[in-house]
């Protein structure tokens, strides 16, 4: 066995990023511990809670179930990539305004799930929203406020497209 660290070249939040990692390190560990992007959270580390969700090549993934080395050549969006300077993304604003954030631990994952959803379905039904968020656990909000936030964000983004 070679037991060699691997150099990974990728794009994170629109910027080229390069890091050295062990093949066994998850993308979640690489983002948090190597790149210092601690907005992405570790909950269960086995695919069940969605706290670690990021968008890779346009698809929502649980970064705990992706190896860092698999990010080679891919494009990654994390929660840090949403706001423009001090201006929050409409989805982030909707979560704040609807009280869909309490402790905030689930929030980065939920916001990225919302982004992935609205990029695909501009005007989702409540059933579609709940299906898209089903992989995300939130101990605080009871989900209804989250669904309202997604609705608000959908409406605002649609308005902005006009």
């Amino acid at each position, binding site marked *: 066995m070679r037991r060699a660290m691997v150099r990974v070249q990728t794009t994170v939040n629109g910027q080229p990023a390069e890091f050295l990692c062990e093949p066994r390190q998850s993308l979640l560990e690489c983002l948090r511990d190597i790149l210092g992007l601690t907005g992405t959270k570790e909950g269960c580390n086995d695919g069940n809670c*969605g706290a670690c969700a990021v968008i890779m090549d346009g698809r*929502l*993934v649980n970064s705990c179930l992706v190896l860092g080395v698999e990010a080679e050549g891919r494009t990654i969006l994390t929660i840090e990539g949403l706001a423009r300077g001090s201006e929050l993304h409409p989805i982030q604003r909707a979560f704040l305004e609807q009280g869909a954030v309490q402790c905030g631990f689930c929030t980065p994952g939920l916001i990225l799930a919302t982004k992935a959803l609205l990029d695909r379905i501009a005007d989702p039904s409540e059933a579609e929203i709940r299906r898209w968020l089903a992989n995300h656990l939130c101990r605080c909000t009871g989900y209804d406020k989250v669904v309202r936030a997604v609705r608000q964000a959908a409406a605002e983004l649609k308005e902005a497209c006009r």
Partner: protein
Amino acid sequence: MKWFDYAAPGSLTEAFELLARHPGARPLAGGTDLLVQMRAGERQADLLVDVKRIPELNELGCDASGTLRLGAAVPCCVISESELVRRRWPALAEVAAMIGGVPIQSRASLGGNLCNAAPSADGPPVLMVLRAICRVAGPSGERRLPVEEFCIGPGKTVLAPGELLVGFEIPPPEPASGACYLRFTPRAEMDIAVAGAAAAVRVEGEAIGWARLALSAVAPTPLLVREAGEYLAGKPATEDAIRAAAEIARDAARPISDVRGTAEHRRRLVSVLAERALRVAVARAREAQA
């Protein structure tokens, strides 16, 4: 996780070389089973061979005869969004949209679902009733076998060391046929089946031409219940016939009791789910006939 190396070969030849050279190697598709198991210490590997960059394993399309060629590593999201699959094999699109949740479907493949050989996997029963053929390849060539012969026990398959599941071939849907998969889970999303049933049916006028029924989570492997299909062939498509076939499925089930449910509960679920899945499959077949 213990240390392992990683390789992402771009061809089957390269993958077979890697697997042959490293007896401790394991294929990696979406990783939604494998990485969880390795982190839990249930499985070890000193080399993960990522199969997602091999063209044959990413195929999704029809050949000249209308047969679906589905690569083993195609993620569920691509299957459920495919217009071709939704139109011709809706039950396949539906099960791809049922496995895990959205971020799981971005990664999870039906090849991994089958190779992991969990009795509770949702994909295999659907592949069985759709008569899918597995394409298995290794350094010495390719062999083909029906999906129902692929799993031989919990976590065990017919794959020899160094072999890969390349993909599935699913014959074109016959006219006046329909298929459906139903499972029982305590939660609507993000849960593992306590039991599941897939059915495919062809109707000929008021009668059933042929039928296939397969079950998940009620035997050491996903289970094709041939007797249920044989019983239905040629019978009028009535509620009585469907109920009798569901009873045959219940008797064929060999469930165990575990955290998800008792054997008795599972047997009861099989008759209910098989009955409902057959009913939906018949309705879809009639729709296709109309």
